[in-house]
């Protein structure tokens, strides 16, 4: 069987003509008219990429890689690394400035949930409208209609206008339509960051199903755990360039390390994050069992995480979660306010919370990463890697346990002894 490439990208580059961050804007007609007197050529808005606009910037530069048919490839990188731009170009939403890409097969893209939905139309009507916009024919949509509705779980509300749906229902229906696209190549952009956890799992399952049936998947995400699980290969983008591409575990670890060369900092404001931003994680301080600042996690000691949250709104019933995980993304232990009935109500301003992990038993000699979640039905903030921290020996007598990376990260006391065979 020929290893035909589903996606071939050569030297792809994208330059935006103006950068809103530094005050660039679309021309106004007035400006164009007054410019007309001085330079007739300026009237054409579609002028070439080497225009004299100094306010432009290169979002992507010289990206080249290939994706064989049926592979699931992840794309990771910080905010502004160019991941969304790459996806937009491959989805043909925008044109590249340089380079070339060749895609074999029908292209489906999920850049957003609810593309094409109109508030005044009913759920049923929106399924057809959205399906059509995403590229399905009327016949195809009719064929899959029942499965779409079943996946979304909103049978009884099919004929009410979508404006009456809760945000959860809306998302489920919107995703269901996109999930039943059956293209040869599927491009997904962090759509899965929405919805409740049950639904998220459904989405992941559906993506895995598509992957198994041979769909080529390109998945952009901040959720490194998911990327490692779903994708065999991952590409790392940084400031518009392809920095690394290879097996997911390797690339993800590399990304985390690059991310936190300044990992001792408490200040979280520079961390890549996702969420609606109504409240943000500002600081994370680590203290040891005695309440003194800790630069490392000590075996058998308590670990106290003090989180500073800056909120712009009042939010009731907020949940916080802390995940301590390996640098490859495997979770070691988690803490979740809902689980222990710790209720959080946020007020505008700065608030602090502490989570005290008791008798932490991690094997010394390695590093772990800390992930933070803030959630109230919608994700307010999620920082995949808030901090990287060393795990060190206990104070006083060293435990004597091996620090070899082959040994498991969690440490449990154990004892070996000879055993005489018992007689039957």
């Amino acid at each position, binding site marked *: 069987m020929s290893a035909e490439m589903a996606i071939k990208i050569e030297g792809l580059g994208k330059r*935006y*003509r103006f950068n809103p961050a530094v005050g660039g*804007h*679309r*021309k*106004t*007609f*007035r400006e*164009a008219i007054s410019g007309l007197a001085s330079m007739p050529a300026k009237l054409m*808005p*579609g002028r*070439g*990429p080497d225009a004299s606009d100094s306010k432009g910037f290169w979002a992507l530069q010289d990206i080249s890689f290939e994706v064989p048919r049926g592979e699931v490839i992840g794309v990771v990188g910080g905010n502004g690394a160019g991941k969304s731009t790459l996806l*937009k*170009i*491959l*989805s*043909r*939403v*925008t*044109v*590249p*400035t*340089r*380079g*070339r*890409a*060749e*895609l*074999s*097969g*029908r*292209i489906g*893209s999920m*850049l*957003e949930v609810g*593309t*094409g939905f*109109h508030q*005044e*139309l009913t759920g049923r*009507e929106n399924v*057809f*409208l959205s399906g*059509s*916009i*995403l*590229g399905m*024919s*009327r016949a195809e949509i009719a064929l899959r209609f029942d499965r779409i509705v079943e996946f979304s779980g909103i049978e009884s509300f099919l004929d009410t206008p979508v404006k009456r749906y809760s945000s959860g229902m809306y998302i489920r229906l919107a995703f269901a339509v996109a999930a039943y696209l059956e293209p*040869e190549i599927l491009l997904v952009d962090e759509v899965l960051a929405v919805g409740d956890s049950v639904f998220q799992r459904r989405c992941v399952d559906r993506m895995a199903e598509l992957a198994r049936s041979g769909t080529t998947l390109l998945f952009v995400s901040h959720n490194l755990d998911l990327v490692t699980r779903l994708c065999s290969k991952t590409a790392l983008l940084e400031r518009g360039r392809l920095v690394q591409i290879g097996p997911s575990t390797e690339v993800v670890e590399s990304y985390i390390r690059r991310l936190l060369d300044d990992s001792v900092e408490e200040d979280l404001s520079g961390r890549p994050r996702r969420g609606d931003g109504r409240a943000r994680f500002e600081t994370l301080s680590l203290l040891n069992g005695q309440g003194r600042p800790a630069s490392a996690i000590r075996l058998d000691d308590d670990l106290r995480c003090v989180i500073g949250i800056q909120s712009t709104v009042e939010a009731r019933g907020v949940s916080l979660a802390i995940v301590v995980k390996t640098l490859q993304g495997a979770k070691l232990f988690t803490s979740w306010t809902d689980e222990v009935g710790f209720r959080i109500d946020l007020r505008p301003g700065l608030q602090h919370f502490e989570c005290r992990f008791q008798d932490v038993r991690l094997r010394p000699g390695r590093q772990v990463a800390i992930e933070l979640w803030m959630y109230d039905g919608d994700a307010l903030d999620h920082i995949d890697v808030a901090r990287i921290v060393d795990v060190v020996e206990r104070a006083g007598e060293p435990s004597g346990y091996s620090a070899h990376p082959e040994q498991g990260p969690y440490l449990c006391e154990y004892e070996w002894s000879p055993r005489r065979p018992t007689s039957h």
Partner: protein
Amino acid sequence: MIAAVEADIAAIQARRAARVNLPPPTLSKTIIQPAKGWRAVDFGELWRYRELVVFLAWRDIAVRYKQTALGASWALIQPFLMMVVFSTFFGKFSGSSAGGVPYPLYVFAGLLPWMFFASTVAGAGNSVIGSERLITKVYFPRLAIPFAVAGWAAVDLAVASTLLGAMMAWYGVAPGAGLLLMPVWFALIALTGLGVGVGLAALNVAYRDFRYVIPFLVQLWMFATPSIYMQADGLPTRGLVHAALSLNPMTPLVAAFRSSALGTPIPFWATAVAAMAAPVVFILGCLYFRKVEGEFADIV
């Protein structure tokens, strides 16, 4: 029994072999590269996406008719009120009849094609800006958006035509054989309207203040189409004004539409010129749109 099992196994193996030997389905190849300069309009692609155009048009129609409390009656009330205004102010000057036809009917029959044109132009002109969410998230031929506007404008026209029919019955005016040419006028007006609308849509994306120019432009255009509300003999036959007015393809088209509806003679030459101009305007508008459309998602 063993023979039966063996037969089963053979059948399964044969099916498997057949599947493996199937040639792989040929896959469509998409090539993405920088867009440079003028690009042709890809009618093939538009045809493949025809269902989408219909869906977009249907969406606009459904939303319009669901949203306004007046619903369908808005398509009737607008031209009716305009007719009343014109009849009150202009009816006196043009005389109570124009070409043998009662003035209110005369002006109403002229307003219908005009409003179809104006809706198409203004609707198409603002359509791309209004579809920002779609354009930045999904691929489809962008021309589908303004094209869909002709859909709901046509529905409005159809609804208003019922009132026209009623008025004609009221005044006892019957259409002639010219009625058969109605689809032609409709197509020509649609082409002209879309051509202008599509061009405006592109300009609207490129220049963010252009949206304020559009209603003004449409208003001016209406005054430059005197055939809506007055007989041609009231106008200058030479000079700058005459030249400007004869460049307006809508003048003969409105007159032709009315003539077909009311059974009066159709002005030939002017209509023929407009008929040739319509596809040209359409193609030019689409070409300009295509040149700029690659950057829509970045700018909008």
